[in-house]
């Protein structure tokens, strides 16, 4: 393809460069820009016509002047992929960051990624044990699911994500996940924390890291998760790995999207985010799942921080409409000193129903998790009432529920950062804690289960 260099820049605005009088340039084509000091920058075509081409520059437009030379590379953005990716640390544009050699490519994969044909998907149904009770019991993670963590500034979502990455496995199996970690606009400190933890546990050998830090170009962030998912798809569907993709922080990604939208003078949607943000996020989140005839899988664990702890903010809101549930981190629990501060009430796993039960976890899982949830929900509600009328106004049943909600947070939700509970352990713990409530108030459990598992009623 043409490698002619154009010096026809007319406008430079934010992260965008406008050129005129070019040969026909493809939509989505990759561009290099040579600056007058000899350095180069990369970009991608966002809009193309006979008269004008708009290029989005990943590294930012700083230092570009109208004399800069622009080359169109005749191809769309591709990531060199091979098994050699595993164990490597790359920057936000896919270049080595760990001082190692370039990736020797087996093939080059288009980073936009094609949609999986819904007819070719396979329903996810393998239970993943994370060792975290609040997740395993109440918002069960399934292999092939996309389950985001909805958090907020100042909460320990990173610890939780890492704990899950460390502990996640199929029940009764040692099969490990390959972790693809994608950092978007996080601080160097956070990154070092992730990296140190992965090194400490030896997980780094089985991981691929794509890192775009807070001081890296914002526009590059739009590419980083696509690179990570392309690598994940390659490892899952060409090499049969089970891949766990953790990306943080989706909020930074969306802000970059807004920045581009504003620079293009697009009509903004809610809170200035572009109207196509739903589609754009779906192009990332939907790259999870299991495909017929392939052994591997992609499970996604995106982390996003809700601005102002507001779950109706467009970022968590649109994410929630695409992902298969969410794990909500609560400031209230965190302030009460509980780790992991997971609030099970607004948390949800949409795929849970199909992966729990006698054959996969245990016959009591569904009912006991319903009962735990219901009892905790009631107890929490009563806390509000007690604040107004005092405990004296409660009857015996309500008092027990009220007490249970504290026990639930203290014994069930709270666990150590390295504490890896088995699913049996978690479910037994549920029974033990529910023994604090009179059996006749446990409306969601049937007699059969009670006589099988209840510590005080068990028939040996």
């Amino acid at each position, binding site marked *: 393809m043409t490698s002619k260099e154009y010096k026809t820049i007319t406008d430079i605005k934010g992260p965008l460069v406008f050129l005129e009088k070019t040969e026909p*340039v493809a939509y989505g084509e990759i561009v290099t820009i040579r600056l007058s000091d000899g350095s180069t920058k990369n970009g991608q075509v966002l809009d193309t016509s006979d008269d004008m081409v708009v290029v989005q520059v990943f590294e930012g437009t700083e230092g570009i002047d109208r004399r800069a030379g622009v080359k169109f590379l005749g191809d769309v953005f591709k990531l060199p992929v091979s098994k050699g990716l595993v164990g490597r640390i790359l920057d936000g544009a896919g270049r080595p960051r760990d001082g190692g050699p370039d990736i020797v490519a087996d093939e080059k994969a288009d980073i936009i990624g094609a949609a999986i*044909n819904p007819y070719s998907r396979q329903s996810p149904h393998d239970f993943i044990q994370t060792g975290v009770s609040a997740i395993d019991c109440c918002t069960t993670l399934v292999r092939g699911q996309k389950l985001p963590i909805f958090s907020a500034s100042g909460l320990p979502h990173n610890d939780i994500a890492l704990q899950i990455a460390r502990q996640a496995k199929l029940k009764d199996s040692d099969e490990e996940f390959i972790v693809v970690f994608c950092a978007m606009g996080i601080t160097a400190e956070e990154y070092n924390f992730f990296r140190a933890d992965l090194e400490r546990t030896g997980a780094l050998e089985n991981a691929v890291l794509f890192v775009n830090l807070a001081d890296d170009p914002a526009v590059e962030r739009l590419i980083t998760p696509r690179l990570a998912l392309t690598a994940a798809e390659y490892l899952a569907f060409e090499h049969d790995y089970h891949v766990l993709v953790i990306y943080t922080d989706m909020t930074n990604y969306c802000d970059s999207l807004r920045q581009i939208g504003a620079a293009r003078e697009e009509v903004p949607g809610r809170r200035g985010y572009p109207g196509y943000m739903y589609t754009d996020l779906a192009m990332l989140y*939907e790259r999870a799942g299991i495909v017929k005839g392939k052994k591997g899988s992609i499970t996604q664990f995106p982390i996003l921080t809700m601005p102002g702890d507001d779950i109706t903010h467009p970022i968590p809101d*649109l994410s929630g409409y695409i992902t298969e549930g969410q794990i909500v981190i609560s400031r209230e629990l965190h302030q009460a000193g509980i780790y992991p501060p997971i609030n099970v009430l607004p948390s949800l796993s949409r795929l849970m129903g199909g992966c729990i039960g006698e054959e996969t976890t245990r016959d009591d899982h569904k009912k006991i998790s319903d009962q735990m949830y219901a009892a905790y929900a009631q107890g929490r509600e009563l806390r509000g009432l007690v604040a107004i009328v005092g405990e004296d106004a409660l009857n015996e049943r309500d008092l027990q529920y009220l007490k249970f909600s504290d026990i639930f947070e203290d014994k069930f939700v709270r666990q150590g950062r390295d504490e890896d509970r088995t699913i049996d352990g978690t479910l037994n713990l549920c029974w033990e804690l529910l023994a604090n409530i009179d059996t006749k108030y446990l409306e969601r459990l049937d007699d059969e289960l009670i006589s099988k598992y209840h510590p005080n009623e068990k028939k040996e």
Partner: protein
Amino acid sequence: MEVKKHKGSEEMSNNEGVIYRISGPVVTATGIDARMYEVVRVGHEKLMGEVIEIHGEQSVIQVYEDTSGIRPGEPVFSTGQTLSVQLGPGLLTQIYDGIQRPLQTLEEVMGVFITRGVDADGLDLEKKWEFEATASVGDEVSGGQVIGTVQETDTITHKIMVPPKASGKIKSLESGEFNVTQTVCTLDDGTEIQMMQEWPVRHPRPFNQKYAPDTPLVTGMRILDFLFPLAKGGAAGIPGPFGSGKTVTQQSLAKYSDAQIVVYIGCGERGNEMTEVLDEFPHLIDPNTGKPLMNRTVMIANTSNMPVAAREASVYTGITIAEYFRDQGYDVALMADSTSRWAEAMREISSRLEEMPGEEGYPAYLSSRLAEFYERAGRVETLNGDDGSVTVIGAVSPPGGDISEPVSQGTLRIVKVFWGLDAGLARQRHFPAINWLNSYSLYPQSLNQWFRDNIASDFPEVRTEISALLKVEAELQEIVQLVGSDALPMDQQLTLEVARMIRVYFLQQNGFDPVDAYSGVEQQYAMARAILTFQEEAKKAMAAGAVLEDVVNVPARIELMRARFAEGYLEKIEGLVEEMVNQIGNSVEAQ
């Protein structure tokens, strides 16, 4: 790799232009003389697109496939056709993308990832069907009249109709084995009629006249049928925030409603959810016919990451298929999940066109497009003189669950039934999480006669009593929040218990329980009556000195409530109620 698409007369005309500009799914071409909404082929790969705007020499095209790598200067071909679907035997049990390409065929050609530049016919053109003529040579026929039938699935007889614009005297007509493109009938003016016809999706199919709906669409969901019924031929909106159970409700409706044909549109939703439907439906049995549900179902899946322009088209593709079955005299139910994604597709295209936006960036024509779509619902007299209907149920996904946004408001202005999903109820695990205080239906007036004739003569009165109890409860709850329930007088405490019974026993329904998931209208009525009987008897007993707690806890009432999960519940209700009445009576004597 290209599967040749038949698409009737789609020879490339001489009309060829070149691409001038590409911006995402919107391509501008010059030198092409196209009409609005004409289908064009874009670039060397001949991607499918549709003309949506004309400026002098320039035609603006929305492309149904990814446009990466396409360059200005590549050719654009006009086809002279508007976006159409192929209609005929073979539609049922299929799953299509937004522009009626069967996903199974796409998998065979492209593998598991959807790439581009592949055409596929909506119908299997090779498959032979047993056509049985029902008209005779010499008959005068006109558009929409039935000339023969094909047994398409166990339960559905596909009626072959004269295309809407044709008419004349039948010159020849024969029964036998044909594929859908072979001529089965000729008219005296030389018109040849095949089993397949094509119809432009943005154009409603014709009918003789619209009737007022007078029959309910029975869904088997108690809160819907009993409190907020939807009529066959009506339109309903289900708005709700994420996690409130929109999709589960839509799927329940697809499973259990007593429509003869179901068209399910997954518009911009999750891939895994569509897969679940695909896995599940072939194994589910239709409670109304006893045959697999798939036999009456057509599915359209354009998931959130599939091309946005095809998402915009998917809703029209679906409703055109629905209308086609309506024209055969069937009752069709169409579920669109979710219309918000459709609206967002319009917004995205509109913003690429740099149109002046209306509210929240949506195009100014949003509400008229919504209205046009829902207006394609209705109960009609078909061109053949039969009675057919299309019922439309649209899910809406308002941002943050706030229904003051344009898509919800545009929908509510049109539909007569509003089933409001409530995140708070979902959080309490009260399913279906439909809020009984703000939901409404404007159909009870026109349906009351049906309920009186078919279920019970006092059906509407029982409904009024039940909903009045729920309203009173809501008021009492406000007081309870302040002072606790013990502070209320006994009769009001009883009202709270009765309302609790309505909520737990009647309104809650477990969509995953094999028995409880479907509740016939007779059973619904019996259950509602049982609740009112409990109230009456409890009042009497308490007036005679019984204690509320004893009355509430009589074993037969608990059994009455619990037994709804067992087979044959309807037959047992009467006995259990009698038992309950006795036990309540005894609680007086126990004093």
